[in-house]
């Protein structure tokens, strides 16, 4: 009998793990965006002294993880598990950063949903009593994603208006059984929902139904409604997906118009930065959560946050074979108060 389960898809943590430190690193373009004041490090150029974009992404993730560990005054030896993932084939950015760090490592592939997937699993491991210190991390890089999923950088194509801009950046969260918080209280794990969208340049629309499914099940399982939270924030639905979610959730009887937004909407200034439908990538919710949200929670602007990273679990190969894009969304509830 799973005593910590609530409803169909949600678990409530008996001993909510504390987030004892967090770190975020972003590329130059993200560093010019509206959230620039919140990031721990803004790179001047996105190769960061390495020979390739892939190596740069791995370095960004590695340095970000080290940053979180240093901030907590710990060393890599103190960490029991590293749970990380990214967008690249065989999640090499994470594998190669874990190679340098020497921490027992679980690699995840959840596409852009990785941040909350790693937080979910990390928090459950901790509540289960299996670890004292866990780092949950993820990264993405515009240039590695472009060449893997789209076109060469110097190719002169026009981006569609629904296309999103992959964030160059990483986020790492260090959790521990005790500490001043904020705390991970509750986890709703998403199902794969495939609305049949085949256009890889319209990810927001492809992922929005998965986000809504997770939200609705979260509200049903917990008996809460959207007004319980100061902030409900999805990972990278962008402008198109955000709009769809607000509209369709209203039809389902949930009013998200006041406290809901999306990391991909917040990270760039659409009018100045020509990012079309907003930001995307693992690093989008990774850097916005570990930069903006946690810092604002510590200041007390937000006390109850539902973070829901969204992922599209397709590949270029399977879309060429005519398959549609399956979406997924994992929600994690973070609160300043441990009780209740």
């Amino acid at each position: 009998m799973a005593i910590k389960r609530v409803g169909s898809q949600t678990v409530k943590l008996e001993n909510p793990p504390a987030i004892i430190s967090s770190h975020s690193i972003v590329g130059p373009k993200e560093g010019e965006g509206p959230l620039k004041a919140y990031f721990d490090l803004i790179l001047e150029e996105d190769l960061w002294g390495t020979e390739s974009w892939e190596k740069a992404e791995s370095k960004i993730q590695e340095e970000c993880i080290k940053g979180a560990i240093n901030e907590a005054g710990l060393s890599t030896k103190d960490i029991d598990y590293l749970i990380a993932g990214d967008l690249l084939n065989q999640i090499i950015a994470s594998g190669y950063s874990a190679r340098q760090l020497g921490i027992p490592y679980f690699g995840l592939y959840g596409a852009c949903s990785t941040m909350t997937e790693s937080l979910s699993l990390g928090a459950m491991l901790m509540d289960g009593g299996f670890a004292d210190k866990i780092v949950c991390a993820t990264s993405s890089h515009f240039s590695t994603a472009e060449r893997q999923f789209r076109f060469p950088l110097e190719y002169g194509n026009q981006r569609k208006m629904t296309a999103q801009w992959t964030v160059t950046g990483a986020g790492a969260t260090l959790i521990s059984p005790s500490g001043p918080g904020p705390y991970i209280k509750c986890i709703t794990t998403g199902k794969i929902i495939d609305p049949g969208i085949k256009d890889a340049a319209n990810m927001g629309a492809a992922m929005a139904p998965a986000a809504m499914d997770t939200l609705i099940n979260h509200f049903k399982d917990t008996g809460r409604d959207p007004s319980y939270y100061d902030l409900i924030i999805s990972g990278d639905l962008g402008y198109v997906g955000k709009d769809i979610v607000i509209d369709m959730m209203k039809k389902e009887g949930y009013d998200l118009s006041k406290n809901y937004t999306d990391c991909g909407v917040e990270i760039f200034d659409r009018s100045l930065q020509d990012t079309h439908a907003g930001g995307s990538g693992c690093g989008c919710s990774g850097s916005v959560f570990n930069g903006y949200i946690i810092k604002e929670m510590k200041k007390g602007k937000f006390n109850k946050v539902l973070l829901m990273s969204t992922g599209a679990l397709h590949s270029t190969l399977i879309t060429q074979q005519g398959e549609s894009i399956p979406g997924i969304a994992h929600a994690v509830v973070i609160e300043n108060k441990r009780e209740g």
Partner: protein
Amino acid sequence: MDKLNKKEYQKFSDKKSPKPKYLKNIVMAFLVGGIICAFGQVIINFLKSLGLDEKAVGAGTSIILVFLGAILTGLGVYDKIGKVGGAGAAIPITGFANAIVSPAMEYKREGFIFGVAAKMFTVAGPVLVYGIGSSVIVGLLSLLFRR
């Protein structure tokens, strides 16, 4: 969401998706494509003035335009022209050059055999396959129906 009607959702999401700037795109495609072609005419006339025959003029024009497309890609300019001009930058032969040079550059770090040389044709390879393949078929058909 399990009972989501896919057809209705496709329609709904299409409605929610921002549309391309049709008029601006058409005007820019016309301008960029037109300028590249007019420049091609300049080269043709210049080569003619050197007294070259028709075949040499055609070959020379191709080489010069392809070279310009390649160097502008190398310098990181052609992707910006393409962003503004869309099809106006893609359809002229300079765009064909861009489609070959950009993956060649992109995959340099994967080596000169499996990287540069193998990936060179990832975008433009189909043009050569269909172009050359169909030209042989056209030749064979003309042989069949010649008399």
